[in-house]
């Protein structure tokens, strides 16, 4: 019986994967290109670009869902890894500006203001696109490996880990804000012109970036599903539900945690790399404590412990934000805070849990997350 339900659920997920993939990959770009500007079907360049941004966030949310939803380790520092990826790509783009910059110097503008005469050494790898791609994944992965090794090996868990990662986000924010780190200080990196010779202001470039983002999200989803379905994924869920029992069964939980933490960091880096060319700016404000926590709320709203939920949550919350900040700019923090409270106290399974409850009413309800107490440990 449970076996059957699992396959049923799986086939439904596969179906929705194809449908969503078709809509995102084919329908939306076509709606952008084909209908005239006044047609009601027309999707403006701005909207498409915005959607691409949400999908980047979905990749970030998938990473957090792996570590939090499946492994029960709450990382409140995902914004830092996102920032590493974003800054790596941002440095490449900043160097691509070249002579087009305001001061006509080969160096990025902020270096001209801050009287930096030569390109700092750590910028050199980012002169090439391959270097930026490589760095955007490698830097967060390496950093997460060191940080995670220290944290998990000494069995820092639960809230302790959450607080330490929050402090990490705070510290990273402080450091990125400094001018002497040569990363643009508070203003960050911006005013990008071109990527691999394509103009970033060109709608077709943005469309291509959107399609790449969709493909990356699809690949990430399949990758995460593969991890979750594998034997290691089972161990992850077991760690979430009872870490001590996993230990007593002869596994080494911290290795699994480290693995999934590193994967999540890599995904955050990927998401950051896709984010920068589409949004055109990266500043320390996007990697601090609050942005890192917003990732948590996306996953919580969508439904943690389900991959679809993470994607859904990221897109829904961000869409809601873009609509609401338009009409009531001051209300957004209230709504975000309210979401935290309401989702955590009343809907621990999030949107997807609610949908499932409604559709599965005839069958016995299956809570996504069982023992609440043990996740907290």
């Amino acid at each position, binding site marked *: 019986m449970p076996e059957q339900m699992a396959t049923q659920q799986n086939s439904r997920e596969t179906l929705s994967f194809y449908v969503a993939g078709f809509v995102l990959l084919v329908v939306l770009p076509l709606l952008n290109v084909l209908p005239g500007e006044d047609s009601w079907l027309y999707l403006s360049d701005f909207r498409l670009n915005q959607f691409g941004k949400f999908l980047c966030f979905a990749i970030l949310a998938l990473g957090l869902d792996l570590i939090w939803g499946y492994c029960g380790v*709450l990382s409140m520092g995902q914004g830092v890894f996102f920032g590493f990826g974003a800054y790596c790509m941002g440095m490449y783009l900043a160097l691509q500006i070249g002579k087009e910059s305001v001061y006509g110097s080969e160096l990025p503008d902020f270096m001209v203001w801050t009287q930096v005469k030569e390109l700092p050494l750590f910028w050199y790898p980012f002169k090439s696109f391959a270097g930026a791609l490589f760095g955007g994944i490698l830097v967060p992965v390496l950093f997460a490996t060191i*940080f995670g090794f*220290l*944290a998990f*090996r*000494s*069995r*820092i868990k*639960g*809230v*302790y880990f*959450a*607080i*330490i990662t*929050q*402090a*990490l986000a*705070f*510290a990273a924010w*402080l*450091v990125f*804000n*400094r001018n002497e780190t040569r990363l643009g200080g508070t203003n960050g990196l911006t005013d990008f012109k071109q990527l691999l010779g394509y103009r970033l202001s060109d709608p077709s470039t943005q469309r291509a970036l959107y399609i790449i983002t969709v493909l990356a999200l699809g690949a990430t989803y399949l990758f995460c599903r593969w991890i979750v379905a594998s034997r290691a994924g089972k161990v992850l869920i077991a760690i979430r539900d009872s870490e*001590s029992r996993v230990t007593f069964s002869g596994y080494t939980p911290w290795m699994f945690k480290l693995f999934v933490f590193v994967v999540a960091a890599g995904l955050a880096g990927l998401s950051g790399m896709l984010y920068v060319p589409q949004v055109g700016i990266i500043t320390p404000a996007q990697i601090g*404590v609050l942005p890192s*926590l917003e990732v*948590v*709320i996306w996953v*919580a709203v969508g439904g943690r412990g389900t991959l679809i939920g993470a994607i859904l949550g990221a897109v829904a919350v961000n869409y809601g934000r873009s609509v609401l900040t338009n009409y009531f700019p*001051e209300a957004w*923090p*209230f709504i*975000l*805070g*309210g*979401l*935290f*409270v309401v989702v*955590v*106290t009343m809907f*621990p399974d999030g949107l997807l849990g609610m949908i499932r409850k409604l559709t599965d009413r005839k069958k016995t309800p299956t809570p996504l997350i069982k023992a*609440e*107490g043990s*996740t*907290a*440990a």
Partner: protein
Amino acid sequence: MGLDRFSRYVIAFVLLTILPIGLLSTSAPAADAVSSTASESVPPANPIEQALIDIKGDDAALRSQAAAWLIEKGDASLIPKLDEIRAEADRAVRQAIKPVIDLLKNHANLTSEQADTRRSAAADLVGTGRPEAITWLEAAAVKEQVWWVKYTMEESAQLIQLRSDDHAVKLAAIKKLGELRSQNGLSALKDVVEAGTQSGATEQQRVLADSAQASIGQIDSWSWWAGSIETLFRGISLSSILLIMSLGLAIVFGLMGVINMAHGELMMVGAYATFITQQAFIAWFSPEHFDWYFPVALPVAFLSAALFGLVLEATVIRFLYGRLLETLLATWGVSLILMQAARVYFGDLTAVIAPQALRGGAQVMVGVYLPYNRIFIIILSIVCVLGIYFLLFRSNLGVRVRSVTQNRNMSACLGIPTRKVDSYTFAFASGLAGIAGWALTMVGNVDPGLGQNYIVDAFMVVVTGGVGKLAGTIWASLGIGGLNKLIEPVSGAVYGKVFILVGVILFLQWRPQGLFAAKGRNADA
């Protein structure tokens, strides 16, 4: 019996700490009241009038002669007249009058009622370099009762003497400056050394250079000590701020298993309560009672924060007991709401004016200056720790709280109303946050981001200290605060914070459960 004795200790302690402050504040004005000397024999009207006319004249020599005469014989009563002349005179005359006015003003200020005015007058007189000032300073120093003002007067007199041409006077001044450990004399002494070590230096200059070198050595070793003491004080001061913030956090974290991310915003509530109290005093009471707003704000801050805590517990937290990560997220949401509410309602920046008694500071020794507001916070944190200790370990409520912490079900079976204990404990911890916010208005602005600035540090303290141990929180805040101030001068504030984070992570390698880990069956809960 034990309780009795304890409360006696507390009273004795409070008296011992509070009384000297009271005495200080009452004795200060008494010391300030140096009898202002009546102006000496009033010179005949004629020469002064004459000088006032001369100084306006075109002849430069006559002008400077008049100025010198005015400086020697004049007093503060001439300043309005001189100001009048200066207002309508040309540039050369203004230049001649300016030093006269400065000198006369500072001379008059040497006998001012305010100790600070006397001190700054003494310090300003150095800049004029007039030999007359030496006698004034020496005369004032003899009568002076506040040691720090007296010190400045002596130092200034020696600094002026250092500029004299007489070798013996110079040598004496150099020696005396070394004995005084004069921080301000350092650059002048260095000049002397430089002059003496040049190739064309005379024998006399070399002698001066040698003794100046010795004086510099004296000053440097002294200022190293003074610097260490100040660093220590700053460390303790930061520690006490951290402690006062972390206490409430540690209580709800350790005793109730709740991570209260809104703790910072409860501090903000306390700070805004203080601000509102201040505004109420400005609006409704006369200015001479203004300083009373601060003591009145203490219960206001405590109660308003406690009320917020009570509501927070009843509406959100009670659904989440035993689910640590969930409490963290939900309270974070609450903190966002409170922060935005403050931003919408109060705007971005408001400040509380410190009451008179907490302004300024005490100059304990040369080079060591301790601001009163910092001392106040240190004392407050000690009082808070004692209060919590008393409440948790010496009162009925404390016994209940601790028993609920140890075994909730068993306590309920024994008739302890666990729900009530929960909400009272939470309200009390929130009230502590309110007190922290009240105290923080003395060291910074009141703004909606107040809580956010400190919350990460406070959590570091709780994590390092270990859950549920008061001693752990105290030691951890001392350690983190002290380390922070020790690193800061070397690395700057930002990297100091980064180092602390790295330090905490490395520390947790060694002690994953913090300094004072919970032992036994509860350890992994």
